[in-house]
């Protein structure tokens, strides 16, 4: 079947989609967006978390056909999404700002390390706090954590743990992830 939906603000089309494919598979294998991860494909790890019409969901449990006409935000679009939120735009509504286009040109990116890339505050906080080891759980955690901070800018530790209880991490023991989310929340409230 054919599928049309919006991913990270851009219209996308996929052809010859097998009806049993998940949204995750379409993102990863058909649209070249492998950032959402395929760790369990049974809704038990959160690594594939994306926002479907704004709501965090496991993309492995969304049948591809169910995404028809919907808006999806993945980790690849998180920085833009956070920037547009900060600038007061809705999902994908503002396009690329002139300011961003200039920044892009001025700084460039390092293809090996990605240095110079624009990051969402929560992405920067994960780096700074040492919350990334193997990184396989990271994309899902980032999408979930970013959404929680949007809803609840001043979370308690128990709030953070509850909001992230659907995201397994096997490397870090979660302590640095807690640090990262606390850091992102603190920076957010300080307006940094």
């Amino acid at each position, binding site marked *: 079947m054919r599928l049309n939906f919006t991913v990270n603000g851009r219209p996308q089309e996929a052809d010859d989609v097998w009806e049993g494919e998940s949204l995750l598979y379409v993102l990863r294998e058909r649209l070249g967006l*492998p950032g959402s991860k*395929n760790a369990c494909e049974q809704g038990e790890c959160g*690594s594939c978390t994306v926002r479907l019409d704004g709501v965090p969901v496991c993309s492995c449990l969304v049948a591809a056909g169910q995404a028809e006409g919907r808006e999806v935000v993945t980790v690849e679009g998180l920085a833009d999404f956070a920037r547009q939120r900060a600038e007061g735009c809705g999902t994908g509504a503002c396009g690329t700002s002139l300011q961003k286009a200039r920044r892009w040109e001025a700084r460039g990116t390092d293809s090996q390390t990605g240095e110079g890339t624009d*990051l969402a505050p929560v992405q920067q906080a994960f780096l700074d706090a040492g919350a990334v080891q*193997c990184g396989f759980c990271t994309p899902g955690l980032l999408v979930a954590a970013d959404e929680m901070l949007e809803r609840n800018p001043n979370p308690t530790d128990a709030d953070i743990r509850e909001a992230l209880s659907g995201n397994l991490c096997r490397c870090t023991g979660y*302590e640095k992830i807690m640090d990262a989310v606390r850091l992102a929340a603190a920076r957010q409230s300080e307006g940094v």
Partner: protein
Amino acid sequence: MPTNGVPTKITQGSGTKGGIGESTLRPDGTLKVTGEFAYSSDMWHEDMLWGQILRSTVAHAEIVSIDTSKALATPGVYAVMTYDDLPTDVKNYGLEIQDTPVLAHGKVRHHGEPVAIVAADHPETARRAAARIRVEYRDLPVVTDEASALAPDAVLVHEARDDHHIGHVPHPNVVHRQPIVRGDVEAARRRADVIVEGEYTFGMQDQAFLGPESGLAVPEEDGGVHLYIATQWLHSDLRQMAPVLGLPEDKVRMTLAGVGGAFGGREDLSMQIHACLLALRTGKPVKIVYNRFESFFGHVHRHPAKLYYEHGATREGKLTHVKCRIVLDGGAYASASPAVVGNASSLGIGPYVVDDVEIEALALYTNNPPCGAMRGFGAVQACFAYEAQMDKLAERLGMDPVELRQLNAMEQGALMPTGQPVDSPAPVAELLRRVKAMPMPPERQWESSEGADVRQLPGGLSNTTHGEGVVRGVGYAVGIKNVGFSEGFDDYSTARVRMEVAGGEPVATVHTAMAEVGQGGVTVHAQIARTELGVTQVTIHPADTRVGSAGSTSASRQTYVTGGAVRNACELVREKVLELGRRRFGSYHPAWATAELLLEGGKVVTDGGEVLADLADVLGDEAVEVEEEWRHRPTEPFDLRTGQGNGHVQYSFAAHRAVVEVDTELGLVKVIELACAQDVGKALNPLSVIGQIQGGTTQGLGVAVMEEIVVDPKTAKVRNPSFTDYLIPTILDTPTIPVDVLELADDHAPYGLRGVGEAPTLSSTPAVLAAIRNATGLELNRTPVRPEHLTGTG
């Protein structure tokens, strides 16, 4: 500024930013947070096919027939291969013993063994085709434990063994057996005032890395193949793959793809050979990605174990003797079992001084899932048991369990049961002191003005208690782990370091085959290069087989061994750069010939701080490059009868204090805090070190209260191969983990460092168990402990 006219002496690296000792950030971090980092399952190629493996549905059976005709006739299928299609006479592989069939031949020995492989144009096509392969099995009796494996009429798991262990094992269903005998246990037992005995069970743990086994094999024009793969050791894979593929090693090229965690589970091959076989057969790139179900069958697990211990002590608490027997279930294939036996035996009594010891450790061949490497192997199982024994002993003696441990704690200079002296700091008593001295978490943190916060209570969101039945307990444990490959293994690593000018600045490139699996080796390599070469810009070259072996990312060894190799190569590069400088500029300043010269801040300086030249000028258009192997001190095998020998190169120590709250009526556990103190010798990257300790601690917590692969004892089939029923801790199960890092240098190791990754996985489990015992008063001789064990409803 110089004082009294004497210049301040500086040493190499002390003035370079981002060098060792700093918490520099991961070079791959940005790519990982943006989703651009390419993991092995993310690989994609034009026209690629998808591989699928058909696995046995039974644990032990003869294969009567395999009919692939319907699979081959499925539209979209490009190849179906079975044992008969293997291209050479080499049809088995294995880390030490080549006993594992690439595809089953004649029989299957465990549930989930690969029988056939399929390549098709879509994963669903490949799955459908695999499902159309008809395999007829004739069931054989299953061997599942020591009694069934060693019975006189036991079915042999491997009927014709010719490996180098067969000569010394008591039965062909024993992979390897290692006794260690020291002193006179019979005599020592007579001196004991108190003797405690125990029988312990350690469940089968899974590494449960999140990135599934996966990779992409691309056929090359010269008849070779290029494999992009997540592994722990590229060259070990290569050595096992090439003969099966019938290719010389230089035609099997391997590049490390992003690795989503490993923890030992990627030390053995999984889909590597299968993907390459299909790529070579079809002439097309082939991608294989396991799903989670398959991942539980696709890699080895932690050995489950039965452990029998006898500890004796004097009235004052001095250990008189330890006698123990550790039976590890290796499952159907050998994998790392011999090394696991070596660790379990040599580390079997823990970090304690005991003169009279009898240890026996062995690994069985059974029809259970194959077991092999997992973080802390051998030492983890033993630590669970000997620490339970220490608590039992303390209780019998009426002593404080920490004091009893401190009284018997080893120090530098102590002798291991193998007779090997511990020749670097062994701050066992100090680690216990530190972990005990940490402030206790406040009581009843779940109480709030709005009632009980269930998120902080046992049962969590499931709303099972508002405080009823909740009892707090505290427990301690300490452990000892070897670092690096032991028992005479030639454990080396290779590093290639290049220095040149790019964009007007000196840049160092570090190229190794080290598998970055998340541990942060790439971060540390860049730090070492900055320290040793005085540059700020370091490029980490992707790991591949175009450079020599880096050994395995396991055994807590990479910072030590590949870190050591990088430092060594950097030192050689530095010498060459200085040589170049002397040739070019030596005549301009006498210090080139007379002073000790350093590379700092992109310049050549004297140890007095005088700048002689810019590195960019010294290098000019030249690139300086060195590739060198580096080895740690050699070790020797353990004597097969007495277990004596200098088998290990370094030891690593950690201690934990666990604070738990147990709902004693429902048998649910909430770990409140899991404090750790560990000696790391030298923290090259403190942030990474703490991350390793917290991660290892949490894996130990998992196997204490929830993680276990359940195998049906009648059929040897796995009953819970999913993340629905194999549970690993969530963020709500994981407590705060305060870490106290001690840095006592090991003078034999690069920078004095000590391997970090495994030790925290050892003592975490027994500390949690001790805390649960403390809360409940129950004996608890198995891990993981489940609600039925805490409520007498097992």
